């Protein structure tokens, strides 16, 4: 590709300790349209370079003080793109090669031949133009990559929205199926005078109304970004309350739900209702899992180490299948069929994150699973937690 040297690359700094050469060369170069600044030695040359930032430097190699090689090194360090043409004495081939190794653009020998000088200058200008063009291509490419990345992210966001909506639709269709089935059974039971069928139908309707209410509540909790109102609470109290609230449900399902009374005492800053909901979610999941086996058992315990405290919920259910273990924190994934909204664990995880914590799990399939609500620990408050309700 032929590159025309634009007039912009005509600012030249000429450094030579011989006044005659400086005068003669600067006159020649000015006559050719270059803007020339001269310097009599390396030190002055460097100062001029810093001040003027010229496009091209022409420097003699042999000078007292900072010589041409050192000057070349320093200039390349400051500004790798500056073109530096070195002037060598006749027979200084070794120095000339060294300067090329230090990334000099070219060398010309004394006595200076005008034609050789202009060819060297023209090549330096071409290289400057090429570098500028390359920079502009690179910027353009970077802009294009950034634009494409932005577009890809937008597509990904849309896909995530699409997936969420389609999962939500699936959950709602399942609930509708339960409601439709329930209403059919009520009608059928009444029509055929079979009270047990009507009763079963009514239970189905009620169960699916509860599922819909749970789904709406979980969706609202999940969609609402919020900062919890924190106060110090004893996690052991929260654990005991969750166990107490779910004791009847566990008994009905034939699951032994117990609180590990040997647990250590652990304090954390929490918004009590939110964390209690998150914890009850974990306990309720564990009861569902334990109900699948003979002599189902769920144990809730409190623990802590270093800066963290936790409430663990262990069940002796069947544990999680590998596929389920990967998906459980995704929205609308439920291993519980009709019993789950597929949002509960995500909501618990969100609550934990809002408290600076997380939900962890250990899959012990086929011998159960342990879920832990982990929170940052605090020291017991001096009043012994009088703020607790």
């Amino acid at each position, binding site marked *: 590709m032929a590159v025309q040297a634009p007039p912009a690359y005509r600012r030249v700094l000429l450094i030579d300790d011989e006044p005659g050469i400086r005068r003669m060369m600067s006159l020649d170069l000015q006559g050719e349209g270059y803007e020339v600044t001269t310097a009599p030695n390396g030190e002055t040359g460097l100062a001029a370079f810093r001040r003027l930032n010229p496009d091209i430097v022409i420097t003699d190699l042999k000078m007292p003080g900072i010589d041409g090689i050192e000057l070349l090194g320093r200039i390349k360090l400051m500004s790798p793109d500056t073109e530096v043409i070195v002037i060598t004495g006749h027979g200084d081939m070794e120095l000339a090669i060294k300067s090329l190794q230090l990334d000099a653009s070219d060398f010309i020998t004394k006595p200076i031949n005008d034609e050789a000088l202009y060819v060297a200058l023209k090549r330096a200008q071409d290289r400057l133009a090429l570098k500028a063009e390359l920079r502009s291509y690179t910027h353009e490419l970077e802009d294009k990559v950034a634009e494409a990345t932005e577009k890809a992210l937008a597509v990904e966001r849309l896909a995530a929205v699409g997936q969420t909506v389609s999962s939500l639709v699936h959950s709602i269709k399942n609930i509708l*199926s339960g409601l439709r089935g*329930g209403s059919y059974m009520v009608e*059928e039971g009444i029509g055929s005078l079979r009270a047990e069928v009507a009763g*079963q139908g009514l239970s*189905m309707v009620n169960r699916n109304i509860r599922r819909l209410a749970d789904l709406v509540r979980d969706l609202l909790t999940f969609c609402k970004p919020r900062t919890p109102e924190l106060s110090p609470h004893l996690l052991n109290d929260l654990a005991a309350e969750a166990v107490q609230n779910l004791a009847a449900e566990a008994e009905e399902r034939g699951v032994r739900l117990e609180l590990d009374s040997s647990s250590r005492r652990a304090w954390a800053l929490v918004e009590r209702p939110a964390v209690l909901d998150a914890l009850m979610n974990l306990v309720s999941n564990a009861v569902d899992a334990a109900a699948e086996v003979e002599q189902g058992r769920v144990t809730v315990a409190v623990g802590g180490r270093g800066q963290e405290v936790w409430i663990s919920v262990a069940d002796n259910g069947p544990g999680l299948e590998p596929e389920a273990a990967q998906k459980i924190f995704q929205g609308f994934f439920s291993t519980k069929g009709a019993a789950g909204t597929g949002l509960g664990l995500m909501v618990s995880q969100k609550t934990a994150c809002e408290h600076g914590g997380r939900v962890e799990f250990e899959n012990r399939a086929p011998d159960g699973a342990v879920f832990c609500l982990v929170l940052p620990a605090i020291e017991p408050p001096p009043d012994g937690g009088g703020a607790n309700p």
Partner: protein
Amino acid sequence: MAKKVLVVDDEMDVRTYISTLLESNGFKATVAENGEQGLAKLKEARFDLVTLDVMMPKESGIKLYREMKNDPELSAIPTIIISGLAKKTFLHSQKVLDKFKGQQVPEPDAYIEKPAEPEELLVEVKRLVG
């Protein structure tokens, strides 16, 4: 003799609903909770019809449907898919699997999107085995 229908769905309410609907209309219903259980029941006894959900844990309806259609003993049993998935999504996934596995599987005999209306389901059941 009453025609035997296998109802495969992971949702207990749907199993109860469809089996009650079928039994109230003179059919004999047997239930299974997932594809794996469904296949086991199909191998144990002879059925005249299968109603099959698609998205189920353990083994999906898509897999069971393909297993049935590739098994000479089971391929002739009429099948009604009852799913929350749109029919075209189900058919698309089957086409993709056809290509991927290099085996052509026929379209189901009937497809009903959830929630299944009792009249709609009965019409299809009677059409296929009535």
